């Protein structure tokens, strides 16, 4: 069950990070001079999304342990 939960969490995080990446590359293409700011915002948001997935993974570990 833990593995199944981790898989579903990875799915959600994948969608989230994919959206962030697509929008970030889009905005960099529109406005290359703002790429530095966009990159910073992108990394922070990606870390937040990933954090949610990792919460789920920790819960998965606990469920298995």
């Amino acid at each position, binding site marked *: 069950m833990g593995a199944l939960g981790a898989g579903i969490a990875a799915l959600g995080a994948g969608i989230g990070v994919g959206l962030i990446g697509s929008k970030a590359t889009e905005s960099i293409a529109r406005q290359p001079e703002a790429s530095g700011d966009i990159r910073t915002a992108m990394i*922070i948001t990606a870390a937040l999304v990933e954090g949610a997935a*990792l919460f789920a993974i920790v819960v998965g570990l606990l469920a298995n342990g």
Partner: protein
Amino acid sequence: MRIAISGLICLLVLVGGLSAQAGHDGHDHDGHDHPVEKDSGAHGEEATYDPVSTIMHHIADANEFHLFGEVSIPLPVILYAPGHGFTTGLSSMFHHGATAVDGYVMNHGRVNRIADASFPEGHVDLEGEGHHFVHESEDGESAYVMAGGKQYMLDKPSTLDGGLMGGGITSFYDFSITKNVLTMMLAALLLFIIFGRVSSAYKKRGDNAPSGLQGFLEPVFVFIRDEVARPMIGEKHYERFLPFIMSIFFFILVCNLLGLIPFFPGSSNVTGNIGVTMVLAFLVFLVTNFSGNKHYWEHTLWMPGVPWWVKLFVLTPVEVLGLVIKPVSLMIRLFANITAGHIIILSLIGLIFVFGNNGASVGGAATGAVVGGLFTAFMNLIELLVAFLQAFIFAMLSASYIGAAVEDHDHHDEDHATDHHHGGAYAEKVAHH
């Protein structure tokens, strides 16, 4: 070429360490076998390979620093149990688990206590074969040792991550210099040496162009100052918090990088230990809340411009919870990222033993070594990125929490505008110096 050779050496050392370890950890949890039957020696052929327990053993803290095969560095052990007093010594006094000292035994490199008060004090030889002196009960839930023909139940292990990985609350306190503590001391020492040299270089060279180590670290330092601390905390206050942000960043970075080295000075999972990340996050919590100004507390406890019932029932409870959730998310993020990285690499190395049927199939092991080795090299590169990224994220989010606490709300927008416009100009000015 040199990288390829050192990569190969790393791989060999890892494989060597794991193969010696596989025998140690070769017990299954299906509970059908009798405890004694599943405990075989390090080279026993009937031992089955259990990837989960091997991985959990490798990412956990330990009271000795395992090098390879039978060789490990003994570490100081400082134990305290209420009503029992202190027990000190080197971890070698346990003879890898064969001897119990004052009711403490070593299990998987970790000191455990025998809860039974009737267990004799002093050095007691335990009954067992090969390397297994701690037996697991039928259900795999608890462990016991045999001495003088009697069974004595073991307490749960003591460290916090042990509790998270399925341990529990125990009856003693472990203040030992464990593997993780030793690595943290090493990281601190490394940072003292590196930054001592860099600062003396600045004193000696004055305004001349940086060179050597100084030139290597200056871009990192300037990056954290100009891209993390200044925009996040604000022009007015950032210098006050710069030392804290820098210390957090470089400590996490060095610990992450040490964790990626698969042999002696590295290999311990420091930032993947929830106790370590908890302390780091707690420091951020303290710094944020003790430096919070009037506006911060007003916005947290009684947000202006919002109807009172929204504040009372929604906003204030959420904001107060947020005070705790922010550092908790810092703690979990770092812990889970680094632990996940270690688990993936250990799983890939574990493929060798899964495919090789723990020594029975040489062809399978070779396939596992090729596949697992290549994927491990790939994962290590990703982990190198993650090591930097997580240190950066931790520093960045800490800076943004601190920034939210010290922000001047009166000229909020102006501050941000000047930050962005002057950032580039300031960096140029620094470069000219």
